[in-house]
């Protein structure tokens, strides 16, 4: 390096208009940190204030007497169950659709239609999905999938299965999107090398492309799980307005799947003043637990997305 160094581009030398813009950008960034910081601090503070480990293991009761209204064991189980069930539906379906779209995609018109359908579902409000799910599962021939009370043949159209099916539609576009992105990022020569070794297209997908796209699939699934854990509208509509898990008469595992229940989101909703307002303090703690779950899922996404560099980029 020789010659005079250029003068440093100092903010003080800028015209006023540019300096105002610079200040506004700083203000926006700092506001963002302050808002997020205060939300997390406030929730952590409230969570710590009403912290009670016992609430994780007690069933909720609908009573104004706070010493008897119990905890949120059932909502916690409900959230876990819904997360698992909807992931089991959404992840394989999403991967299949993404693989078909990127690797086959014939005929073209059909592929475009599937693509836009997934796009449409991504934009559909969850309450609309919930309403459709309710009416869909109220059909008589699907009654074995949903809750029915003893000695009544009214099909309510509500159950964990119904809720999970609709929840999986929320997660589906995220899985499809992330998987497609991962598959598109795999260079063409990797596929050609696999064909050159004599593998069929199907074997290439199974043995080469899917393992390579695993971080993308994981990211999409975890993002979808975050959305599922946070959704309230579908739970309120499709799990019924009950707090305790109601697995029908037989109490079997299938009875649980077609039973009613609640999740952390609906627990928070019903216990806030917007619902019955029975226990706002417990709603705070439940919201804190929910926030922790979402943060953990978020952390998982970051870890997966960072992932290992694929072999062929070296």
């Amino acid at each position, binding site marked *: 390096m020789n010659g005079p160094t250029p003068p440093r581009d100092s903010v003080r030398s800028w015209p006023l208009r540019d300096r105002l813009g610079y200040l506004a950008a700083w203000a926006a960034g700092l506001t963002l940190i302050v808002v997020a910081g205060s939300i997390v601090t406030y929730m952590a503070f409230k969570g710590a204030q009403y912290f009670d480990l016992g609430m994780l293991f007690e069933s909720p009761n609908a009573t104004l007497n706070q010493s008897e209204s119990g905890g949120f064991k059932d909502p916690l189980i409900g959230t876990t169950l819904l997360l698992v069930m909807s992931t089991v539906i959404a992840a394989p379906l999403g991967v299949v659709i993404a693989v078909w779209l990127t690797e086959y995609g014939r005929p073209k018109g059909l592929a475009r239609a599937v693509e836009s*359908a997934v796009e449409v579902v991504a934009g559909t409000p969850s309450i609309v999905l919930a*309403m*459709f799910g309710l009416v*869909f599962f109220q059909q008589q021939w699907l009654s074995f999938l949903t809750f029915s009370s003893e000695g009544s043949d009214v099909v309510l159209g509500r159950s964990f299965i119904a809720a999970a099916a609709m929840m999986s539609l929320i997660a*589906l576009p995220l899985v499809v999107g992330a998987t497609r992105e991962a598959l598109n990022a795999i260079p063409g020569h990797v*596929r050609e090398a696999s064909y050159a070794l004599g593998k069929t297209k199907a*074997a290439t997908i199974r043995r080469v492309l899917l393992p390579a796209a695993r971080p993308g699939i994981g990211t999409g699934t975890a993002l979808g799980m*975050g959305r599922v854990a946070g959704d309230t509208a579908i739970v309120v509509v499709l799990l019924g307005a009950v707090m305790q898990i109601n697995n029908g008469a037989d109490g079997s595992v299938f009875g649980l799947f077609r039973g009613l229940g609640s999740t952390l*989101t609906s627990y928070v*909703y019903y216990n806030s003043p917007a619902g019955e307002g029975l226990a706002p303090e417990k709603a705070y703690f439940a919201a804190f637990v929910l926030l922790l779950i979402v943060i953990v899922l978020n952390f998982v996404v970051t870890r997966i997305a960072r992932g290992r560099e694929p072999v062929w980029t070296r």
Partner: protein
Amino acid sequence: MDIGGIAARLPGRTRPGGPDATPRPAGGSGFWTEAKVERILGAIACIVLALIAGMIIFVFQKAWPSFAHNGLAWFGSGGDVDLQLEDIFNSPANPSEYVYTLHAWPLLWGTFAVTAGAVLIGIVFSLLAAIFIVEFAPPQVNRVLEPVVRLLAAVPSVVYGLIGILVIVPFVGEHLISVGRKESVANVVQLDGASLGVGVLILTVMIVPIMIAIVVDALRAVPHGWREGAAALGANRWRVMWTISVRTARPAIVAAAVLSTARALGEAIMLSMVAGSASFAPNPIDGITFLFEPTRPLASALVENVEGLSVEPFGQTLFAFAAVLLVSSMFLSLAGFIAKQPMRKYGVRP
């Protein structure tokens, strides 16, 4: 040249790896032949397509009677929406006497006011924040900001709603709305803090992270050469950002606005908690009071009335709300897709 097709016709498969590669049963052969795999994958995709298409058709079919009975008056104003909904809910059991009369303007206006407010504030704010993240933030700040944006995007709406209803709504009701202001509109509507303004505020916080993510990606995708060219001509960092990067990223900014509008339209739970749940159309003529008037967007009206879905005419009316939401979100996804195209044309992938 269809390499896959050629490969499919080659007999046998060789497995990479040396002698230590344990032989496994040939996974790709036998039942899973080439054509079958394609057909099965395609069939599953088609089933999902059929389900989604069926859902859209079903919603419109269910919604039709409500639109057919009201005509364009459905979108107009007149009367109290809550009373009309009550009449529909209590309509006689005889299908020929079903009541359908509904003028949904207050709900539509509420949806529009809340969404437009949040998106307009959000787009200015998120553009500035994105510029900050891409250009001005020191690396240490950025290390905090990126998780913060992801966290804000992931917080469930019911948590925002809880904070809103237990903290912000009482604060607004007690400290920001004066007694005089409450009295000035007391004969029309009660002001208790749950309001359009609070809804807009929280909704803005909810959609800003989505916008920031899209805009930041776009700003980062602007080719370095373009920015360096501007800097070499003597433009300062702000000018380079504003005249080169932001201009190139305009399509992404539009896409961000459109996609977050779709998100805002569908927000039901949070708004039903903090926006007052009264089918009242806030009146912009009221000046500042406008912001403190309660409202109820379409999606919230759905959540609150969903118990009545099994009453035939009421259910059809609710599906009419759902159809309006569905049409809007479909157009928005389409618009978002179109808005992203110009950047692709320049080879800039947003």
